[in-house]
């Protein structure tokens, strides 16, 4: 247990930039945009009306809204502004895992790691846990820092606009629960993504060069083959590999997509319209519900097989 925690620390030391600095940077960018937009809006409105602090009057329009309906608005906003983080994190984790069992073979430092009393299973599992749990937890921390800053900025703007801050913001918004929900989502997401992460680990462990190609080419070729077979019309398979891969990657539980097309809002694989927005797309209930999907369990099965193969190759392949 102690040595596993050091394996995780090792991953953090090596990947501090991707695990923590990057999301803080994205958050900083968000805050910068928010401040810049507010300043620009304030200046613009002031120039038109020739009156100072007109922005506050525009913001005060929110008082026309019933504060009781604001809880979903705020919490949906909190989830929505986190979506870009989840999207980027998807790439970060993928490339991290792809390099995790490959880079140390390329620079031969694997011989140093292998000189220590650590089983190869623990090594591989530490990469999986670092990518699917540790990195997301740190990213959620960065999201929390970003959103706290944005909420504080909103608080100041509300103050200046004479809006009761508690009634309109801190009462209805529940950032703490949102962040806990995101953490829990990532715990479920780790299981959902197990086949993808396991596949990345396998490619990383297997490839003697170009792990990216090994990870991407086989599923793409498989999908193309399916498309081609279907196109011949001799055999119609009511199943698309493209859809399967797409659903797996984008259909996780964290809000990856936040498309607004007209009145439709899509968060992850859940779709709903404006009228239906009376509760949040992610709840503790929907998270648990995931484990009743057969897809979830098929994914876990494949994931476990891929990871076992990655461990086997890491342990037994002669790297000369």
């Amino acid at each position, binding site marked *: 247990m102690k040595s596993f925690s050091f*394996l995780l620390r090792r991953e953090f030391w*090596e990947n501090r930039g991707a695990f923590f600095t990057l999301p803080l940077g994205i958050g900083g960018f968000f805050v910068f945009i928010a401040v810049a937009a507010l300043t620009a809006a304030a200046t613009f409105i002031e120039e038109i009306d020739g009156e100072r602090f007109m922005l506050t009057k525009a913001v005060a329009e929110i008082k026309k809204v019933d504060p009781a309906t604001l809880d979903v608005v705020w919490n949906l906003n909190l989830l929505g502004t986190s979506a870009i983080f989840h999207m980027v994190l998807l790439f970060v984790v993928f490339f991290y895992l792809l390099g995790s069992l490959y880079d140390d073979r390329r*620079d031969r430092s694997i011989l*140093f790691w292998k000189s*220590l009393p650590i089983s190869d299973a623990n090594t591989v599992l530490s990469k999986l846990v670092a990518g699917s749990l540790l990195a997301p937890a740190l990213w959620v921390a960065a999201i929390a820092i970003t959103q706290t800053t944005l909420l504080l900025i909103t608080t100041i703007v509300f103050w200046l606009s004479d809006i009761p801050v508690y009634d309109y913001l801190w009462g209805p918004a529940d950032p703490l629960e949102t962040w806990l929900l995101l953490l829990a989502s990532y715990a479920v997401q780790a299981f959902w993504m197990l086949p993808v992460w396991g596949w990345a680990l396998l490619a990383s462990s297997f490839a003697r060069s170009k792990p990216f190609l090994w990870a991407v080419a086989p599923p793409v070729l498989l999908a193309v083959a399916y498309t081609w077979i279907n196109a011949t019309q001799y055999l119609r398979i009511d199943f698309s590999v493209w859809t399967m891969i797409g659903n797996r990657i984008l259909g996780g539980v964290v809000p990856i997509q936040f498309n607004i097309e007209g009145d439709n809002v899509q968060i992850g694989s859940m779709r709903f319209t404006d009228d239906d927005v009376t509760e949040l797309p992610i709840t503790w209930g929907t998270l648990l519900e995931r484990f009743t999907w057969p897809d979830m369990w098929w994914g876990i099965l494949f994931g476990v097989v891929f990871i076992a193969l990655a461990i086997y190759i890491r342990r037994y392949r002669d790297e000369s």
Partner: protein
Amino acid sequence: MSDIIKARGLRKRYKNTVALDDVDFDVHPGRIVGLIGPNGAGKTTALKAILGLTSFGGELEVIGLDPMKERSRLMNDVCFIADVAVLPRWLRVHQAVNFVEGVHPRFSREKAQRFLDRTKIKPNSRVKELSKGMIAQLHLALVMAIDAKLLVLDEPTLGLDILFRKEFYNSLLNDYFDEERTIIITTHQVEEIEHILTDLLFIKDGKIILDTTMEDVSERFTEVMVAPDLADEARQMKPLHEREIFGKFVFLFDGADQMELAELGELHNPSVADLFVATMKENGA
């Protein structure tokens, strides 16, 4: 105590080459064994088999364990340095110490710190900022702070200058080695380690061609410097090897009578390097 390493009929074949051809050898505790052979002789394969890094045929026991089946347990008692370039470049010195302390039950932070204090290595430096010599010092400090039964060194000083090489072997001998520990070393710079070795294993084309202790070497092998007029006489005594220096001939004999040899000329103990060249030639190099 029983053998540290026991190999019986050890075999390893790569696609077109036989790296280890039915090799038997033992390594006893408290010895410093030089595993010496030309490039491609099977040295590294033998070490990899010992460390559980490659599969093999035959029987091999290291500290009573099967290196293939019980590798991670074996690494509690076995340390190795593959060569100087293997410390990860992003790692910081203090992180390396913390990590090894965290995962190795027999690591002593105080010892490692003592070794590091003697160097110019700064705790916050990354490996990539260190010179090759400093990386070797760091690696050695980490390894010497581990209370292991067997230390395996595969070309540990490759690419280091002579000062670092001398210092490397000095610390190994003075600060690390004792009768409880065993060291196996491969290197091309045989001259530099022959004074610290207690045993020799010469390997060529996957076979052990000499397995002896340094005490036996001085008893078994004798070098005679012979004037040209006595050279034919010396040749009739079937020397292992002959070479010419300053118009005189130097013959190397295996197990010949010292009294008889003394009549031919001046006697010497052969150096390991000369012995190596002679045995390699004798075995058809």
